[in-house]
C-alpha cells in the first residue's frame, strides 16, 4: 500500500466538508485526521514522494523521525480541536481549519524549500479566516495585520529560498547556517512565524481576537511549524539561545498585567516557544529532543488551557479576568480540567510539561549556559504564576462575579478531557513520548537511562534548588512558592515584578505610541499620495496627460541621443 501526502488528505477533506450538508460536516471533520492518522502509518513506512515543478525536483513527503513527530502531533491536535469544535455550525471555519492543518502538514513533511514555502503560504492565507470568523471589526482589522505579517514572512522565505537555490543549486530543505544572505532571510522568515521578540506582536494582537475554537487551532500550528523549521535548518545557532531566553522572559511581565485571559495565554505561548528556541539554539541532542518534545506537550497543554478559556468565553461571552470569577461553582469539570492544564504548563511532576521543559534546562546547564539557565528558571516561575495560577484563579475562583452558567457542551468537555488525559499520561509515562523523539537512537547508549532517572527522581529541581542555595543568587523562600501562590504574587510582585512591570509598561506604551504614530504617518501619507483625491488617482485632464506623453518622449529622445 502506498501512502498519500498527508497534506493532500486534509485538502481533499476540506473540499468534501465544504460540499457536505451541514448535518454531516462536524463528523466529517473528525474523519479527516483519523483517516490521515491511518495514512500516516504508511507514510512512516514508505519512502518520499517526488514531483517536478518548473525545473526543480520537489520532495513532497520526507518522512524522517523529526517530520513524523510533528506529523503525529498535528494529526492529534487536529483531532482534538475538531472534537472541541464539533458543535460549530460554520462551514467557513470548518473548511479553513482543515486547510490550515493541511498546510502545516505540508510544511513539516516538505523535503525542499519550495514545498515548504507553499505550505507556509497556505497556512498564512487559511488561518486568517479563523480570526475573521469572529466577525467583529476588531477581529477584521487584527486579521489583516496578522495576514500582512504572515505574508511578509512567506515572501522573505521565498526570497531566501530562491537565493539559496541559485547559490547551492539544490532546493533541499536541510541544515543551513546563518553565514549567507539566504540563510539570514530564511531565518527571519522563520523568526516572524516563531514570534521572535519585536516581531511577536501579530500573535498577541490577533490570536485573542480569533473565535474560541479558532484560537485552539491557531495555537497548535503556526509557531510549531516555525520551531520545526528552526530545528531542521538552524540547530545549534547560538543566537537562538539569547533570542529564546528573551522570548521566555519578556512575555511574563505582559502576561501578569494583561486582563484578557486568552491574551495571557497568547503571551504564555511565546514564553513556552522561547524554551523550545533555546533548546534548538543549544543544539545538543538532549536539547533538541527537549525542544521538540516540549513543542509536542505545549500543543496539548496550551490547547487544553485555551479550550477551557474558550469554553468560558463560549458560555459566558466574557474573557476578561476582572469580569470573571467564581465559575467553579457552575463549571466544576471545566475547572478541574483547566487545573490539569495549568499544572502541566507549570511543569509539575507527573504532568507533561515536567518531562520536556527540564530537558532544555538540563541541556543549558550541561553546556555551561548558567545565566541562561538561571533566566529560564525565573521564566519557569513566571509561567507558574501567570499561566498556572492566574488563569484558573481569575476565571474560576477569585471574587465571585455572580455569573451563573453551565458546563460547556459535551464535545468541548470531551476534547478537554482527552487533552488532560494525554497530559497526565505523558507526565506519568514519558517513555511514550520519548520513543517518538528524533534523536533517541544516538541517545540510548549512555543518556536515555540517565535522563529518565534524572527526570523521574526530580533530579533537576533538587539540583536547581541546591545550586541556587549554594550560590546565594536566589531568594531562599522560592521553593515554598509552590505552596502559596498568593505569597508569590505579593512578595515578588512588590519586589521585582512591579518594578519590571512599570518599566515594561512604559516601554510598551512608548512603543505603542511610536507604532501608532508611525502607522498614522504612513496611513496619512499613503492616503495623501494614493487616496482617491491624490494626484496619482485623480483623473487627469486629457491635455495634462498628453503633456506627459510629450515630456516622456523628450526624455527618451535625449537619453537615446546621448
Amino acid at each position, binding site marked *: 500500500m502506498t501512502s498519500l501526502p498527508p497534506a493532500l488528505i486534509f485538502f481533499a477533506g476540506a473540499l468534501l466538508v465544504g460540499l457536505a450538508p451541514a448535518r454531516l460536516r462536524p463528523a466529517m471533520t473528525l474523519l479527516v485526521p483519523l483517516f490521515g492518522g491511518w495514512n500516516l502509518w504508511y507514510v512512516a513506512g514508505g519512502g518520499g514522494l517526488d514531483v517536478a515543478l518548473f525545473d526543480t525536483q520537489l520532495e513532497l513527503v520526507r518522512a524522517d523521525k523529526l517530520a513524523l513527530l510533528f506529523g503525529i502531533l498535528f494529526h492529534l491536535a487536529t483531532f482534538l480541536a475538531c472534537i472541541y469544535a464539533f458543535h460549530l455550525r460554520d462551514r467557513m471555519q470548518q473548511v479553513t481549519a482543515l486547510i490550515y492543518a493541511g498546510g502545516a502538514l505540508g510544511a513539516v513533511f516538505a523535503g525542499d524549500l519550495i514545498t515548504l514555502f507553499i505550505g507556509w503560504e497556505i497556512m498564512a*492565507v487559511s488561518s486568517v479566516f479563523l480570526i475573521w470568523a469572529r466577525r467583529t471589526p476588531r477581529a477584521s482589522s487584527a486579521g489583516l495585520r496578522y495576514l500582512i505579517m504572515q505574508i511578509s514572512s512567506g515572501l522573505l522565505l521565498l526570497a531566501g529560498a530562491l537565493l539559496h537555490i*541559485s547559490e547551492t543549486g539544490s532546493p533541499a530543505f536541510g541544515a543551513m547556517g546563518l553565514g549567507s544572505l539566504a540563510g539570514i532571510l530564511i531565518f527571519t522568515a522563520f523568526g516572524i512565524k516563531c514570534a521572535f521578540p519585536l516581531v511577536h506582536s501579530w500573535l498577541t494582537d490577533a490570536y485573542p481576537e480569533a473565535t474560541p475554537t479558532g484560537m485552539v487551532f491557531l495555537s497548535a500550528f503556526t509557531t510549531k511549524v516555525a520551531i520545526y523549521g528552526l530545528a531542521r535548518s538552524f540547530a545549534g545557532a547560538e543566537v537562538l539561545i539569547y533570542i529564546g531566553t528573551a522570548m521566555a522572559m519578556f512575555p511574563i511581565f505582559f502576561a501578569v498585567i494583561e486582563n484578557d485571559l486568552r491574551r495571557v495565554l497568547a503571551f504564555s505561548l511565546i514564553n513556552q516557544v522561547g524554551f523550545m528556541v533555546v533548546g534548538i539554539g543549544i543544539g545538543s541532542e538532549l536539547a533538541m529532543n527537549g525542544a521538540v518534545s516540549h513543542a509536542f506537550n505545549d500543543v496539548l497543554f496550551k490547547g487544553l488551557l485555551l479550550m477551557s478559556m474558550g469554553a468560558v468565553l463560549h458560555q459566558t461571552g466574557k474573557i476578561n479576568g476582572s469580569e470573571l470569577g467564581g465559575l467553579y461553582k457552575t463549571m466544576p469539570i471545566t475547572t478541574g480540567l483547566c487545573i490539569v492544564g495549568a499544572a502541566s504548563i507549570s511543569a509539575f511532576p507527573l504532568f507533561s510539561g515536567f518531562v520536556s521543559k527540564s530537558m532544555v534546562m538540563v541541556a543549558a546547564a550541561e553546556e555551561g549556559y548558567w545565566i541562561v539557565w538561571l533566566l529560564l528558571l525565573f521564566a519557569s516561575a513566571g509561567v507558574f504564576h501567570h499561566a498556572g495560577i492566574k488563569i484558573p484563579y481569575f476565571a474560576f475562583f477569585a471574587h465571585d462575579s455572580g455569573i451563573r452558567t453551565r458546563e460547556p457542551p459535551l464535545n468541548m468537555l470531551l476534547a478537554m478531557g482527552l487533552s488532560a488525559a494525554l497530559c497526565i499520561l505523558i507526565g506519568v509515562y514519558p517513555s511514550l513520548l520519548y520513543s517518538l523523539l528524533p534523536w533517541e537512537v544516538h541517545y540510548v547508549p549512555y543518556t536515555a537511562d540517565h535522563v529518565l532517572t534524572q527526570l523521574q527522581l526530580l533530579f533537576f529541581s533538587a539540583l536547581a534548588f541546591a545550586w541556587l542555595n549554594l550560590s546565594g543568587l536566589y531568594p531562599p523562600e522560592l521553593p515554598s512558592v509552590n505552596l502559596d501562590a498568593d505569597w508569590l504574587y505579593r512578595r515578588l510582585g512588590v519586589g521585582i515584578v512591579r518594578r519590571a512591570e512599570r518599566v515594561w509598561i512604559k516601554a510598551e506604551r512608548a512603543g505603542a505610541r511610536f507604532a501608532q504614530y508611525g502607522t498614522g504617518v504612513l496611513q496619512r501619507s499613503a492616503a495623501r499620495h*494614493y487616496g482617491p483625491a491624490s494626484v496619482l*488617482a485623480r483623473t*487627469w485632464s486629457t491635455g495634462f496627460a498628453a503633456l*506627459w506623453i510629450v515630456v516622456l*518622449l523628450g526624455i527618451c529622445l535625449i*537619453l*537615446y*541621443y546621448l
Partner: protein
Amino acid sequence: MNAGHLPILQVALPLIAAPLCVLLRRPAFAWAFTTLVSWALLAMSILLLIRVMADGVISYRLGGWAPPFGIEYRLDAVNCFVILVISAVAAVVTPYMRQSVAREITAPRHNLFYGVYLLALTGLLGIAATGDAFNIYVFMEISSLASYVLIGLGSSRRARAAAFQYLIMGTIGATFLLIGIGLLYMMTGTLNLADLSLRVAEVPDMRPIYAAFAFITIGVLIKLALFPLHIWLPNAYTHAPSAVSAFLAASATKVGAYVLLRFVFTLFGPEFSFERMPLMEILMPLSLIAILVGSGVAIFQHDLKRLFAYSSIGQIGYIALGISFASTSGLTGAIVHIFNHAMMKGGIFLALGCMMYRTGSVELSALHGLGRRMPFTMAALIIGGLGLVGVPLTSGFVSKWYLVQAALEADLWPVALLILLGSLVALIYVGRVIEAAYFRPPPPGAPAVREAPWQMLIPTWILLAASLYFGVHTDITVSVAERGAEMLLGLPA
C-alpha cells in the same frame, strides 16, 4: 479547407463577420453568430499553435506576393500564443455577453455592439498575426477605434468622456507609432519586420533610427498603459460595459505588450535596444513605479471596477518589468504573465459583471454580505484576487517566480524585493474585497439577491479555473513562453 490559409482566415473571418453581424437585426441572432465566430477562431488558433510548435515559423504571403514587397503574415511561438490568448478570451467572453449586454446596453444597438466587438477582435488578431510594420499600425487603429465605441456604449454618461480621453490618448499613440514607422521606412525603404531588422543595422546615419525608436516605444507604451501613460485606462475600464471591460483587460493591453516585444526584440534587436539604447533604464523604473503606484492607488478605491483597473496598471508593470530584463527568465515571466493576467483579470471582470447584473452596482459597499448570497461569484472574485497577489497554486505565482528569478539573475536585489512588496500591497486590496464580501453583514433593507445565472457563471469560472490549472500545470504555458523568449532573444531554440 486548405490549412495553409489559416493565418489569413484568423483575421479575415471576424472582419467579414462584422458587417454580417450588423445586418442580423435581432440581438439573439447577432449574439449567436458572434459566439460561433469566436469559437471558430479559437479552434483555428489552436490548430495554428500546434502547427507552429511542430513545424516552426509559418510565413504566409498575402495575395501571393513574396515578402519584402508583399505583406507577410509571420507566425511564430510568440504571436501564436498571443492569438490563442485573444481568441480564447473571446470564446469565453462572447457567450457571457448575452445577458450582460442585454442588461447594460439599450436594445436597438445590440447588433451594432456585436459588429463593433468583432471589429475590435479583428484588429487585435491582425496586430498579432501580421509581419508588416504598417499593417500593425492599421490593425491597431481598427482595434482602437472599435474599442472607443465599445467603451462609449457604457451606460453612464461618463463612459463617453472616458472613451473620448482614450480616443485622444490612443490617437496620439497611434500617430507616434506611425511617425516611427515612417522614419524607418524613410531610412530603409521596407516595411516588412524581418527585412527591417536586417536593414536597420546597415543604415549609415543612425539618428533618424533613434528618433523612430523613441516614437515607437512611447506610442506602444501608451497602448500598453504603462505608468505614467496609463491615464486613459482606469476610466475606460470603469465605465465600459462589464463584458467589454473583461475583454479589453484580458486582450488589449496584452497585445500592446506583444507589439512592444515585437518592435524591441524582433525589429530593433536586443543588442540595439538594450545596449545601444538605454531601454532598460527607462522601462525598469517606470514598471516598478507602475507596480507600486497601481497597487497602492487600488487600495483606496471604492468602485471595484476602478480598483481592479488600477490593479491592472500594477500588473502591466510586472509584464513591462519582465521585458526590461531582456533575459530568458525575464521574458518568460513577461510572456507567461501576459497569459496568466489575461485569465485572472478577465475572470475578475466577468465576476464583477455578474455582481453588476444582480445588484446593479460594483461599489465596495454593495459587496457587503454577498459572500453568502452569491457564493460562486464571490469565490471566483477571491480566486482571481489571490492570483493577483501571487499565492502559490495560482498562476500569478508562476509569473512572479520567473520575475523574481530574473531579478536575482541580474543581481538586482532591490528589484526582487520590490516585486515581493508589490504582492504585499496587492494583498491589502484583495484583503479589503474578501473582508467586505464575507465578513460584513448586508446593509439592512438590502434587496434580496440571487446567484448570477449559470450562463454568466460558467464563462467566469472557465477563465479562473484556467488560471488555477496553469498555476499547477506550468509546463504548457512555460514551455511555449520559454521558446518564445529564446526566439526573441535570438538564441538557438
